[in-house]
């Protein structure tokens, strides 16, 4: 899930995405043998990494893992940061392929990383299994400076287990010229959105693009939020056993039935090409597409949040972040924590560089957003404001992968097969209740 949620690695380099797919389809074995995977990449990366790192003062060596970012220069940047650290030798591993899965498996072995990033912070099972260490004291006073919904997502039982690196978001993007031509103003409610999509669907141009599965994989969360609900309630109970949720999820089926959704685009929602090639008038996509949108459309695009269902609901944009975690299996946990604090708390200049100089992201520290030159004007500034104002963490920490799979299956049945939303929600509830019981036990 988390790779889907963040989606940045493929944001700008679909090529990298394809290799990733092919890699793990062909060599899924690498995920099984986390140890092997680790050895393999370490050996491959060692010369570059040690070459880049200065000799460590204390002789401690730390392994830091990143997934493969699509944007050129990111790898060199993180190696530069690591080399600048004086208290230990930091070896950076840049891991292509199925990062989330192989990292999770490697944490069970001795060949895992000391410091590593993970989508939306560690999973609840990593925390429960004692695989990651508590980083609350590292964040200390800077707590209020981080995007609150992201930090909450990385916190369990009052303890924070990851430091947010950069924030990514998804939002609704539309072609201004197409809306103007059809005489439509940006829709404020879901029903207005459906009407707009109907008016904008003409010939081979569809009104709205929510992914090739009609939004089944992407829009579940935003639809719940638009009804004013959430995956879980504040006290960690199942959150959408509610007729309003059934109505909201049913709206996606309404769009599907109205044939206003673009389906089967060559590149999925995370790529701007459906919008730039004129296949659709509106698309739910990520902030990372902005450089390409600018190039393809100039100023002919506008941004907005996913609208509210009605007066009782709320507009929202999903936000996510890779969080830097420290493995409990590290040979020197204290040194690893010290390095994580140094890079992701103290070195604000590096954080700003990492967020804005290579790809298109929002710094996770609110105080840095003002300094990010990429976010000061136009659509990007509006987007950054949406992330702060109506940003919603993609899924709560207790929403385990099993819950996510059950919910994804239900969404597919509702949207694609027209199954009864209330019945499907009840099925998800059964799975989620059992999972909540398991993780909270």
């Amino acid at each position: 899930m988390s790779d889907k949620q963040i989606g940045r690695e493929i944001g700008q380099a679909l090529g990298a995405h394809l290799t990733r797919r092919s890699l793990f389809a062909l060599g899924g074995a690498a995920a099984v043998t986390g140890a092997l995977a680790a050895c393999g990449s370490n050996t491959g990366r060692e010369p570059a990494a040690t070459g880049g790192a200065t000799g460590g003062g204390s002789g401690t060596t730390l392994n830091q893992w990143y997934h493969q970012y699509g944007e050129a220069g990111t790898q060199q940047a993180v190696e530069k940061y690591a080399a600048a650290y004086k208290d230990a030798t930091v070896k950076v591993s840049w891991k292509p392929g199925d990062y989330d899965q192989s990292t999770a498996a490697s944490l069970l072995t001795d060949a895992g990383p000391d410091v590593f990033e993970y989508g939306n912070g560690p999973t609840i099972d990593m925390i429960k299994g004692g695989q990651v260490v508590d980083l609350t004291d590292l964040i200390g006073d800077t707590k209020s400076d981080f995007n609150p919904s992201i930090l909450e997502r990385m916190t369990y039982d009052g303890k924070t287990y990851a430091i947010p690196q950069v924030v990514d978001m998804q939002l609704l993007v539309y072609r201004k010229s197409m809306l103007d031509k059809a005489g439509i103003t940006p829709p404020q409610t879901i029903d207005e959105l459906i009407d707009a999509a109907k008016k904008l669907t003409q010939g081979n141009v569809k009104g709205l693009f929510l992914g090739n599965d009609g939004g089944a994989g992407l829009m579940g969360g935003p639809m719940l939020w638009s009804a004013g609900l959430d995956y879980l309630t504040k006290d960690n109970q199942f959150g959408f056993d509610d007729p309003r949720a059934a109505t909201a999820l049913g709206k996606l089926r309404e769009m599907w039935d109205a044939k206003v959704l673009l389906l089967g685009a060559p590149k999925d929602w995370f790529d701007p090409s459906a919008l730039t090639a004129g296949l659709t008038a509106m698309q739910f996509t990520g902030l990372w597409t902005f450089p390409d949108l600018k190039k393809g459309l100039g100023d002919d695009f506008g941004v907005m949040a996913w609208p509210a269902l009605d007066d009782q609901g709320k507009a929202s944009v999903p936000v996510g972040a890779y969080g830097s975690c420290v493995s409990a299996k590290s040979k020197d946990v204290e040194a690893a924590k010290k390095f994580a604090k140094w890079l992701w708390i103290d070195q604000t200049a590096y954080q700003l560089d990492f967020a804005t100089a290579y790809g298109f992201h929002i710094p996770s520290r609110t105080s840095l957003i003002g300094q990010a030159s990429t976010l000061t004007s136009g659509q990007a500034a509006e987007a950054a404001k949406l992330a702060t104002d109506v940003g919603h963490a993609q899924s709560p920490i207790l929403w385990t992968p099993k819950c996510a799979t059950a919910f994804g299956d239900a969404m597919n049945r509702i949207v694609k097969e027209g199954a009864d939303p209330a019945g499907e929600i009840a099925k998800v509830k059964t799975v989620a209740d059992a999972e909540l019981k398991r993780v909270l036990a």
Partner: protein
Amino acid sequence: MLRDPAFRSSLVTFLAFAVFIVPTTFVISLGAALLVARTRVMQSFFRTVFFLPTACSYVVAALVWKMSIFSGIRSGLANAVLGWFGADSIPWLSLADPPWYWLVIVTARLWLQVGFYMILFLAGIQRISPTLYEAAAIDGAEGWKVFRHITLPQLRATSTAVLLLLLINAFQAFDEFYNILSTFGTYPPYARPPLVYLYYTALGSGQDFGHGSAGAVILTLIIAIVAVVQGRILRLGDRGD
């Protein structure tokens, strides 16, 4: 694990897929072999052309099928052809009903594997002694009769091997399913063979090794039972084969 409806439905998917793909590939590759064997001109050309897809990776073929031939927009090959007849574009892989995605998966697999089995059959056909055909011709047998009473029985050893290989291949279904149907991080709840389901359960972020191994054991048992039954039916290893 057997109480998990998703796993049970994955088993059904997988058996249905095997039941369909094994005879289909068998018939098509045998047909192609017969045609190629009877060709007098450019036989090696046809042999090579039919065999060529075998050299292609499943992943590459799956992506070609997904992104260029069966993409949902008007410029996809399949939809462009529909367009000539004035039909609407079909989002092949997005629809669950009717299940067009099966067309995509099955054609991809057929394209990839027919050539290989055709070569096996061709080798078998070329080993049949011409004297048998001559004798049959003298007895007045032709066409279907020759095929039914000479070619097919003579190909028994080859057919057995082909069936076994096909079945194993069908049970290993993963590559094209995964690459054609998975969207970013998710996989639809239909057309999900057990290997794909177990991939998400045990190796995905779920990391549920217990259920994953249980599923793997069940799968092994099924394959073993099917293999034994098939061996019995085809009398594999009998002397005189």
